[in-house]
């Protein structure tokens, strides 16, 4: 595993968001974390990024504990695309992308990365001079993905990349995520509520329920069992009495 959570617990006061969760992603893989609302999916990524209070366990990066502050994690090779796109709406597409690696202070390298990202996302090239606020939700998601790639990460963390998008756009986003994983060999750790779409492109799957890991295996193993149905219909007796919102 290049990036791994071992026995990680995250508590927000009395609220248990994650309890002794162990999961990870191998180099070049596309690992998907799924589960119903409040399962703690996004908290997994936040724990990696130092945005959630880890009260037990540890995050490991290339086999050693990841102890960097949030603003240093991207420099270690982990890039995060947050939920809801969160592009800088008052900046242009190019300015948004450049912010993905301005910390480098190497203009030639920034220009090289910009060129390769614009090549990967034709829509961003087409809209490169537009303000991010003028883009549609799907285009903004592409921009968020592109901005994440500007850091030239080894691992890309994606938090609900298809949230709030139209079905046709969802398909495009999954295709692009798959392309990034296949073509750039970028390891991807994606948290997603769209089970069907993400299982089609994932190489490893995890299912969370009420802050606990209830299944891990291949995408096929998820489809071969009734685990998803049980989780989404509340048939599993996991962490009774605990709120994971």
């Amino acid at each position, binding site marked *: 595993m290049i990036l791994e959570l071992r026995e990680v617990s995250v508590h927000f006061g009395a609220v248990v968001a994650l309890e002794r969760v162990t999961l990870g992603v191998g180099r070049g893989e596309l690992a998907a974390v799924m589960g119903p609302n409040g399962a703690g999916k996004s908290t997994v990524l936040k724990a990696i990024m130092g945005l959630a209070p880890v009260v037990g366990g540890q995050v490991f990066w290339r086999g050693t504990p990841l102890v960097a*502050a949030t603003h*240093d994690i991207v420099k270690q090779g982990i890039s995060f695309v947050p939920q809801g796109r*969160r592009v*800088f*709406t008052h900046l242009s597409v190019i300015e948004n992308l450049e*912010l993905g690696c*301005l*910390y480098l202070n190497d203009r030639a390298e920034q220009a090289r990365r910009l060129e390769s990202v614009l090549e990967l996302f034709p829509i961003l090239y087409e809209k490169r001079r537009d*303000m991010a*606020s003028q883009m549609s939700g799907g285009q903004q998601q592409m921009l968020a993905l592109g901005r994440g790639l500007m850091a030239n990460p080894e691992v890309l963390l994606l938090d609900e990349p298809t949230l709030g998008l139209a079905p046709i756009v969802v398909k495009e986003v999954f295709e692009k995520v798959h392309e990034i994983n296949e073509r750039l060999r970028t390891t991807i750790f994606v948290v997603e509520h769209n089970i069907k779409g993400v299982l089609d492109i994932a190489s490893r799957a995890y299912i969370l329920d009420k802050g606990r890991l209830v299944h891990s295996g291949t995408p096929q193993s998820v489809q071969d069992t009734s685990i998803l149905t049980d989780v989404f219909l509340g048939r599993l007796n996991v962490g009774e009495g605990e709120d994971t919102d």
Partner: protein
Amino acid sequence: MLTRPPSWQRLSELARNPLQAFALSRNNVELWANLLIITFAVVFMLWKGATFAVTLGTVFAIWAMLSVSLNLVVGFTGLLSIGHIGFFGVGAYTVAILTSTTAYENLRTGAIPTFGWPFFAALPVAAIAAGLVALLVGIAFNRFRDDIYVLVSFGFAIISFNVFLNLRGITRGAFGIHDVARPQIGSWVFDTELELMLMAMALMVIVVGISWFIVSSSFGRVLTAIREDEQVAEVFGYHASHYKLAVWVISAMMAGVAGGMFSSWTTFIDPNSFILLESVLLVSIVILGGLATIWGSLLGALAFVLLEEGMRFLPFLPQEYVGQARQVVLGILLVLLMVFRPQGLVGRYKL
């Protein structure tokens, strides 16, 4: 939203066809605000004469330095501070204390140290002093944001005023400091209003230049990112606290320079020049001109100075009510602005 300026070719086409130009610009509030304020300034100065215009120019330059520097913090970084007047005061008092040579021993407050420095030696110290105070205050403020930030900056304005008022061994409290030195190069003393205005304008140009450089740089881009979404800026490798602290200190140093110029121009300062109301007026100027625009801050400062001075000549307004009336008019203007144009005259963002 950004609008791109028309090309020179397009401008010359419009110049040849004024009716078309008028039709196109009819709804352009920014253009009309610029034209109105600048035209009013020119007419007002022609009407009142050169001497008045020169004084007005100095007042404008000082307010402009303050509003441009505050806009770096409020507009470009998204930290609504109403404590900026404190740094203005630190700069003013630093220059006053370092340059004044008055024998205070004869006065009731007792002796305060006198140094007799020249203005140009004291001014950089004023900037550094304001920067140091900002650094200390900023380290404490960095943990706050949004509404709490407004409240703590409010507290700083109150505290700084009380320090100026009560630290009498250094500031002479309510008695103020007299005979602040004028700028001097060799035997050339900047003693006339024109020379002082040129000096203030030169400092303003430096402040504007530095501000423009900051907002045009990658540092400025990160400030914009922090204003829009601090957490995402952090995720992308920018230590937001450091950036916020840096711009806060730079902005305070600029305010310190404005304060130094102010005390040298008036040659006398007391705590009444650094009350909370001045800070509120300053924030109003920034909002009036527009957030995250240097030109807007200059325009806002010009509009404010014209409003402030212009009201003195309203025939139906007795002189004793002018001061209060200015505040009322500015208040009404701000309310109207918030309702009809919350991004300010030429701003890009709403507060």
